[in-house]
């Protein structure tokens, strides 16, 4: 009888696995695709699409997981070899080599599901990544990753990048709520990866390439920017701040303040030099 207990071990692990995923959405500390009120929920339009996709795949794979584990545990329980008093098996094993119809069924059904998932997600992928589908707006900033910081270059009052009035900041990304925002992503040394966890957005910054990336946000507030690609010994601390402004005016105010600060600093430095 004791040999049957092994089936309980497999059952235990399967049950705990499912339980962990069932519990996770209800704990703000555990889980990102959680209700809108919880901290860490997704704030971008693409983030909601990706979370939905995640949940669809989670449901499908979860059902498959439960199905296979139930079958496995049930088999381990039912078909375990039991011996009678003489040490002879109580029951003989069945003798068959397979079943063509079954093979066809369990080939075609997963195939249909997989093709469904592929087609279902394709629109999201194209919307996010195809350069032709990028929002037709001038770039908010050019972001150049380097060991171990993000250099943000915003166009100054003239609205053009790479002109003398550009605003250059480190690790500080600002943009406006509910506006599709485009950036140009670059790297000046090794490969980095531009990762906005709460926007579900990730794009490698590759030296030698300028990659357009777009995102938006439906929530004003501050978020985090992470480097997701190993970029050297300081990779872990390559963190940036993201601030989403409520209104265009707020963003403009912030920009002019920062530009003022940048100019004043340079002027001060210059006059300091003269004074000496």
């Amino acid at each position, binding site marked *: 009888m004791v*040999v049957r207990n092994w089936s309980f*071990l*497999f059952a235990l692990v399967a049950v705990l*696995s499912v339980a*962990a*995923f069932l519990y*996770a959405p209800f704990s*703000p500390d*555990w*889980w*990102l695709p959680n209700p809108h009120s919880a901290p860490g929920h997704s704030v971008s339009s693409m983030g909601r699409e*990706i979370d939905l996709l*995640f949940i669809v*795949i989670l449901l499908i*794979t979860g059902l*498959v*997981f439960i199905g*296979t584990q139930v079958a*496995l545990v049930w*088999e*381990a329980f039912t*078909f375990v*070899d039991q011996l009678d008093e003489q040490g002879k098996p109580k029951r*003989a*094993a069945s*003798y*068959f*080599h*397979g*079943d*063509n119809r079954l093979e066809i069924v369990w080939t075609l059904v997963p*195939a249909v599901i*997989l093709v469904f*998932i*592929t087609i279902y997600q394709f629109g999201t*992928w*194209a919307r*996010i990544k*195809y*350069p032709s589908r990028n929002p037709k707006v001038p770039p908010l900033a050019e972001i150049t990753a380097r060991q171990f910081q993000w250099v943000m270059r915003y166009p100054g009052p003239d609205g053009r990048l790479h002109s003398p009035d550009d605003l250059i900041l480190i690790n500080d990304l600002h943009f406006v709520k509910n506006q599709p925002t485009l950036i140009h992503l670059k790297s000046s*040394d090794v*490969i980095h*990866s531009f*990762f906005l*966890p709460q926007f579900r957005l*990730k794009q*490698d910054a*590759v030296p*030698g390439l300028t*990659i357009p990336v777009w995102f938006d946000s439906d929530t004003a507030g501050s978020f*985090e920017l*992470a480097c*997701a*690609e*190993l970029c*050297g*010994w300081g990779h*872990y*601390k390559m*963190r940036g701040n993201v601030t989403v402004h409520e209104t265009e005016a707020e963003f403009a105010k912030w920009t002019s303040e920062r530009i003022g600060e940048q100019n004043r600093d340079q002027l001060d430095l210059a006059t300091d030099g003269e004074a000496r």
Partner: protein
Amino acid sequence: MTSQVETSSSAPVGHGQGDDHIHPAPRNMLSRYVFSSDHKVIGVQFLSSGLIFFVIGGLLAMALRWQLAWPWKPMPILSRMLWSDPSLGYQMPPEFYAKLFTMHGTIMIFFVIIPILNGGFGNFLIPLMIGARDMAFPRLNMVSYWFMPPAMVFISYSFLVEGGAPEAGWTSYPPLTIARWATPGSLNGQTFWLLAVLCAGISSLLGAINYLTTILMLRAPGMTMMRMPMTVWGLFVTAILQAFALPVLTSALVMQTLDRVAGTNFFSPTGLAVANAPAVVGGGGPILFQHLFWFYSHPAVYVMILPGMGMVSDIIATFSRKPLFGYKPMVYAIGGIAGLGFIVWGHHMFQSGMNPAVGATFMLSTMMIALPSAIKVFNWLGTMWGGRIQFTTAMLNAVAFVAMFVIGGLSGIFMAASPVDMHIHDTYFIVAHLHYVLFGGSMFAIFAAVQYWFPKIFGRMMNEPLGKLHFFLTFITFNCTFYLMHIVGMHGHLRRIADPTVYESLRNSGVTNMNQFMTYSAFALGAAQILFAMNFFWSLAFGPRAAANPWHANTLEWETTSPPAYYNFARIPVVHHAPYEYSVPGLEVDFLPQTKPLPPAAMLHPVNS
């Protein structure tokens, strides 16, 4: 290469073709046990060196877990000995953390799983299972093993060079790896990493050529391809993957080596300047390396799992006392995995800046490769259905392989969906996925295989109760260690970061507690492996003598003595039927060895489906 071909081909061709000429074993101890051309000795050499490196790779993982659970807290005792100095308060330097995961990944993949599954069991089992006296090219086989020790020396020595071990991850993406001043490990350690992986690669390549030739040319009379055990099929398809994909990695590693030592410009973009070093001419492309790397390293994932799948198929059929369900679909599924395996590599690069339309194509092929994996799982379940399941340690590990492979396979679908991959790429979700496949899959297959074939390899039985205890602890602690990684990964916990608390979202008690729980579990998982080592060595010395066929299995290796003689078979066996004829109605016993002609009373079902 050429001289090997020369010598072996001048020997009589086709040992397996009923030629009963028996070579005497070499008398010299050196050529018998060290520089041996006997496939069984070479198999044991691969197995033992792999297990030694398993210990090293595992210890590196323990140190990793310590830092993740308690960032910057000095490790008791070890921190003073190994990496740090008083001026740092014995903290682990961040670059050392990078060295740890780089070396953990490299060692586990190139020095543990591939050598054990392919080098160890591949060498030992292929000639025995197809009824041959030895490999087609025994001396080439020896050369294949002796490319491993230099690789091991290179990879170990890299810890000692200036700058220390490489720290660019096992994926070794340029330009981090080619700019010498980009990070301490890229100063010198990376060159040794490249040499080590090149040597290990040549070893695998020579082995693959040998395996393919042996399986195709030296099968015993009656051993048609469709009568081969699944283990041989797994190793056969693995060898195809190695032969066709590995040379591309070799070329990529050669180019990276030249970028480092000869100043070539393959993977550096125009005017690349890293860490204030002078700019190089450049003109090349970093993404190209990723393509070439994954062109091998994705098939390498199947290299690490297909032999395990084959072995698990054999073990499940044996201990269910039932024919394998759907032999032919299983073979086609392995073939399908191999075929599709060559055209899915791009799914590692969805966020790398690759062309998104090409990415969409890779997404489709990646989804499709889930199909043969699913078919295999269903067939294993079908095999157990209606059987008389004997829960030996080998069987338990094999069933665990199936259960864990289901998790690893299903979590792969999330990554195959490229929009979802945008979020989980380079997070702990990936770490969970790959450990469910490589530990939950490959390592459980290795545990099962060691337990199952130990009697054949060493002539002694392993201890069952100790084995079961090891299995129980490993299975529980493995899941405790890796399951929650899915959840922290979805939470945005990046991989390869030395300190998660840098990020506000990872500083909360939930993530911290999970990290600490995973670390405790990992320590327990590591400690549980001591039982395996104890069982291994105790059984080696004191285990009860094994009979020729202790599991009442059908395949050919059980038809010779345990351990097999130097020449494997006194007479080359003649194969009469498929390998999984268990519980045939009308027979006295519940197994029917492949060499035994069918008694007139019994009738076999055709192995159709």
